[in-house]
C-alpha cells in the first residue's frame, strides 16, 4: 500500500466535508475517485496533499504518517498533485514551468531542463516549449499541469479533473498520457466526472457522497452498486 | 499627578478624533476599492495648504473656509481617481502601491517646489484660546477639531446606512461581483467613495490648520499615523478606524509624555506587533491580509 487513509474527517464551520473516509491505494494502480458535486473529492485531495489538516484521522504515505505535514514537504516525499482549476505560471514559458517542477530533485538548471524536456515529451508539449503559459489552450494547460507535477518525480500523483473541458480527441490523448505515466511506475489517484473515461482507465474506483465513502471496488461492481446509482440519480453525469 | 495624566489623556483623545477622521477616509477607500492610497497624506497636505492660503490671501479662518477646502478635496479626489486609480485597479497590489507612492512623491515635491519648505501657520484668535473643564484645560481648537470630527463621522455613518448610495458603497465593499450583478454602477461607486474619502481628509486638514503648521512633508507624518490606525482597527472597518484613532491618540499622548523622543517609535512598534500577530487588526476579518486584495 503506497497510501493509506484512515478515518479522515474534515469540517468547515458546520459543514462536514469528509466523514471518516478510509481507503488504501496499491502501488502502481490507478484509483479513480468519483462522486456527485460537493461530495468532498477535492477536499480529500487537499487533506491528503497537505493543504488542509484533517480534524481527525490520519494519512500514511509510503509507511510514514504524513497527516500534519505541509504540501512542500509531501511533494519532496513523492506525493504530487494538480489543481482542478489549473494554475500555470502565466508569465513563464512552458519549459520554465516544467523546470520549476524539475528543480525539486536537482539544483542544477541543466539537469532540471533535461528532466523537463523528458516530461514534456511524454505529455506531448515539446512543440510548445517556449510559449508563455498564459497563451496556452485549455488542453495544453491541463497537460502542463500534469507535466509540472510529473517533473517532481512523484511516486503518487493526484490528478484533479484533468479531463474537464477537453474534447473527445483530447480526452483520448489524455488517457494515453495517464497510461504512459503509470507505465513509468507512478501510482495515480484520479478525480473525474467523465464516467466513460474514469471507468476505462481505473483499476478500482472509490465513490464519495456527502463526504462519506459509499462504495469501493472494480469499475463494473461500482457501476452496478445501488447506493452509487441512487447518489447519482437526478445528477447530471457525462458519458463522453 | 492625576490631573496631569488626565490632561494628557484628554489631549490624546481630542487628537485621536482627528486621527480617526483622517483614517476613516483611508479605510473607506480601501474597503471599497481595495487600494491603499499612499498619497492620502498628501491630500491632507493639500487641504492644509488650501486652508492656509485662504486665510493668508482673503482672511478667511480655517473653520469658515472649510466648505471650500472640502469641495476642493472632493474635486482632487475625483481627478486622482479618474487619472491614476481607475487605470490601475486591475494591476497587482505592488503596482498599485507603486503608483500611489509615485503620486505621493509627485505631490510632496510639487508643494516643495511651489511653496518652499517653510513652515506655514495660521494664527487666529481661536488658536490660543483655552477652555476649562474642572481642573483640566482644553484647547478650543483641539476641542472643536474633536467635535467636528465626531459629527462628520456620525454623518458619514448615517449616509452609509440610510441612503441608497451609501448602501451601494457598502455592498460594493462586501462583494464587488454581487454588487455588479445587482445593477450597481461600480465605477460610480468607486468614484464617489474615493472622492468622499478625500473630502473627509479635507475636513481633517481644515481642522488641523489651527493646531499644526503645514509644510510639504506634513502629509508623510500623518499618513503613517493613519496607516497604524487603519491596520489597528482593521482595514476596511470604519468603527475600527474610529476606535483605533482614539487608541493611537492616547498612545501618542502618553508616549509623548513619558518618552518624547521615542514617541513615534512607540506607535510604529505597536504597528509592527499588530501586523505580525494579528494583521487583521482588532476588528478586521481574519484572512483579509492573506487575500491581500481581491
Amino acid at each position: 500500500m503506497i497510501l493509506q487513509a484512515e478515518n479522515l474527517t474534515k469540517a468547515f464551520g458546520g459543514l462536514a466535508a469528509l466523514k471518516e473516509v478510509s481507503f488504501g491505494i496499491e502501488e502502481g494502480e490507478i484509483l479513480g475517485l468519483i462522486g456527485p458535486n460537493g461530495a468532498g473529492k477535492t477536499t480529500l485531495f487537499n487533506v491528503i496533499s497537505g493543504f488542509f489538516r484533517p480534524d481527525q484521522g490520519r494519512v500514511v504515505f509510503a509507511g510514514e504518517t504524513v497527516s500534519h505535514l505541509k504540501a512542500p514537504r509531501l511533494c519532496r516525499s513523492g506525493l504530487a498533485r494538480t489543481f482542478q482549476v489549473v494554475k500555470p505560471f502565466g508569465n513563464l514559458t512552458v519549459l520554465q514551468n516544467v523546470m520549476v517542477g524539475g528543480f525539486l530533485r536537482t539544483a542544477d538548471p541543466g539537469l532540471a531542463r533535461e528532466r523537463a524536456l523528458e516530461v514534456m515529451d511524454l505529455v506531448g508539449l515539446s512543440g510548445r516549449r517556449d510559449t508563455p503559459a498564459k497563451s496556452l489552450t485549455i488542453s495544453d494547460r491541463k497537460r502542463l499541469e500534469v507535466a509540472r507535477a510529473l517533473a517532481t518525480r512523484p511516486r503518487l500523483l493526484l490528478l484533479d479533473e484533468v479531463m474537464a473541458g477537453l474534447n473527445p480527441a483530447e480526452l483520448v490523448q489524455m488517457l494515453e498520457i495517464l497510461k504512459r505515466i503509470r507505465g513509468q511506475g507512478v501510482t495515480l489517484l484520479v478525480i473525474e466526472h467523465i464516467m466513460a473515461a474514469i471507468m476505462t482507465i481505473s483499476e478500482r474506483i472509490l465513490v464519495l457522497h456527502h463526504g462519506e465513502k459509499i462504495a469501493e471496488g472494480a469499475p463494473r461492481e461500482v457501476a452496478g452498486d445501488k447506493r452509487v446509482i441512487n447518489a447519482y440519480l437526478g445528477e447530471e453525469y457525462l458519458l463522453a | 499627578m492625576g490631573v496631569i495624566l488626565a490632561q494628557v489623556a484628554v489631549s490624546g483623545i481630542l487628537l485621536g478624533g482627528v486621527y480617526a477622521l483622517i483614517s476613516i477616509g483611508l479605510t473607506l477607500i480601501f474597503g471599497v476599492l481595495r487600494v491603499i492610497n499612499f498619497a492620502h497624506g498628501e491630500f491632507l497636505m493639500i487641504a492644509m495648504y488650501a486652508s492656509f492660503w485662504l486665510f493668508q490671501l482673503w482672511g478667511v479662518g480655517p473653520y469658515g473656509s472649510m466648505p471650500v477646502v472640502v469641495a476642493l478635496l472632493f474635486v482632487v479626489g475625483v481627478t486622482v481617481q479618474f487619472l491614476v486609480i481607475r487605470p490601475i485597479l486591475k494591476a497587482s497590489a505592488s503596482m498599485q502601491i507603486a503608483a500611489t507612492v509615485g503620486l505621493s512623491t509627485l505631490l510632496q515635491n510639487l508643494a516643495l517646489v511651489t511653496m518652499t519648505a517653510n513652515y506655514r501657520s495660521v494664527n487666529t484668535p481661536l488658536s490660543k484660546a483655552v477652555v476649562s473643564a474642572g481642573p483640566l484645560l482644553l484647547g478650543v481648537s483641539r476641542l472643536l477639531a474633536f467635535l467636528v470630527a465626531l459629527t462628520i463621522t456620525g454623518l458619514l455613518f448615517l449616509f452609509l446606512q440610510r441612503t441608497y448610495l451609501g448602501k451601494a458603497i457598502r455592498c460594493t465593499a462586501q462583494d464587488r461581483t454581487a454588487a455588479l450583478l445587482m445593477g450597481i454602477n461600480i465605477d460610480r461607486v468607486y468614484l464617489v467613495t474615493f472622492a468622499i474619502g478625500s473630502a473627509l481628509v479635507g475636513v481633517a486638514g481644515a481642522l488641523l490648520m489651527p493646531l499644526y503648521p503645514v509644510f510639504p512633508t506634513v502629509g508623510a507624518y500623518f499618513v503613517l499615523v493613519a496607516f497604524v490606525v487603519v491596520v489597528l482597527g482593521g482595514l476596511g472597518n470604519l468603527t475600527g478606524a474610529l476606535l483605533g484613532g482614539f487608541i493611537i491618540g492616547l498612545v501618542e499622548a502618553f508616549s509623548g509624555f513619558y518618552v518624547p523622543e521615542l514617541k513615534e517609535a512607540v506607535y510604529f512598534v505597536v504597528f509592527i506587533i499588530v501586523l505580525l500577530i494579528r494583521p487583521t487588526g482588532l476588528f478586521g476579518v481574519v484572512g483579509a491580509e492573506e487575500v491581500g486584495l481581491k
Partner: protein
Amino acid sequence: MSVPTRSEGSMFSAFRFIPRRSLYVLAGVAVMATVVAFTVKDKFYLHLLIMMLFYAAVSSAWNIVGGFAGQLSLGHAAFFGIGAYTSTLLFIDLGISPWVGMLIGAALATFVSGAIGYPSFRLRGPFFTLVTIAFAEVLRILTLYAHDFTKGSIGISVPFRPALQNFIFRQLSAYVFVALAFLVIMVLVNLWIENSRLGYYLAALREDEDAAQALGIDTARYKLVAVLVSAFFTALAGTFYAQYISYIEPFATFSLDFSVLLAMMAIIGGVGTVWGPVAGAFLVTPLQEVLQAKLGGELQGLHLVVYGTVLIVVVILLPQGIVPSLAGWGKRALGQREAMPAPSLKGGS
C-alpha cells in the same frame, strides 16, 4: 570548475545558462565606465558616474526582494543605514578598516533582515510594504535617539585619511572602480539568480504561491533567502556611501525617501529583470544630480516631481518597465522571440 556529471550537477552551472548577450552588455558597461574614469577629469561628471553605478547596484540589490521575490519592500533603507553606521562607527571608534567593517555591517543587516523578514512573509501586498516602512522608521528614530552613540541628527563625518585600507581615496576615479566592481558583482549575482533554482522558485512563488507549494517549494524559506541576499548587498552599499560621501546622518541613510527611490528606479526600468534597475538608475540618477547641482536650493525637489510622474505613467502604460517594453518592441520589430519573457508584477493573484 569541473564538468558536472549526469547524476551530479551543481547550482553553479547556472552560470552556463546566462545569456551571452547579457555578459557582453555588462562588459560594455564596464569598459565604458573605465574609459570615462581614465579620461574625464571634471569632478562633477565623475561624481555623476559614481552615483549612477552606485544607484544601479543598490537598486539591483533591492530588486532581489522587490522584483524576483515580488515583495515590495519600502524599508531597505534600514539595511543601508545599518551598513553605513556599522562600518563608520567601527572605523571611527575602533579604528577597524571599513573593508572589514563593511562585512560586519552586512552580516548584521543580514541577520536583522532575517529576524524581521521571516515573520513578515505571511503578509501579502500592502501589509508587507507597511511593515517594512515601519521597521525602517523605527531604526531611524532609534538612531536619532541613541545620539550618545551615533551622534544623532548631527551625523558623523568620516575623517579624510586617504589610504587603501581606510577605504578612502584621493582620486575620484578610484571610487569609480569600486562602484563599478560592486555593480558588476550585483549584476552577475542577479544573472546567476535568474537562471538558477532560486530564481525559478522565486518566479514560481511570485506567480502562484499555492501551485509553487504543490511543487515542493518551501515558499517562506526562499523568500527568506531573497531577503538575506538583498539585505547583505544593500548594507555593503551603505558602507560605500559612507566612505564616498564622507558624512552620514539618520535622515539620509534611513529615510523612507531613499527606500522609495530604490524601488522607483527598479520599477521604472523594469522590476524583476536584471537590467531594469540598472537602466532605471542610469536614467533617473543623471536627472537628479543635474537638477540638484544646477538649480540647488531653488527648485529643490523638481526631479522628484518628474520621477513621481514618470513612475505613475510607467505603472499605467508600461507596467513591465522600460527595459522589457523596449525589448518587446525590439523583438516585434525584428520578428524574433525571446527565450525568457521578463517576469512582471502585473496580474497573477
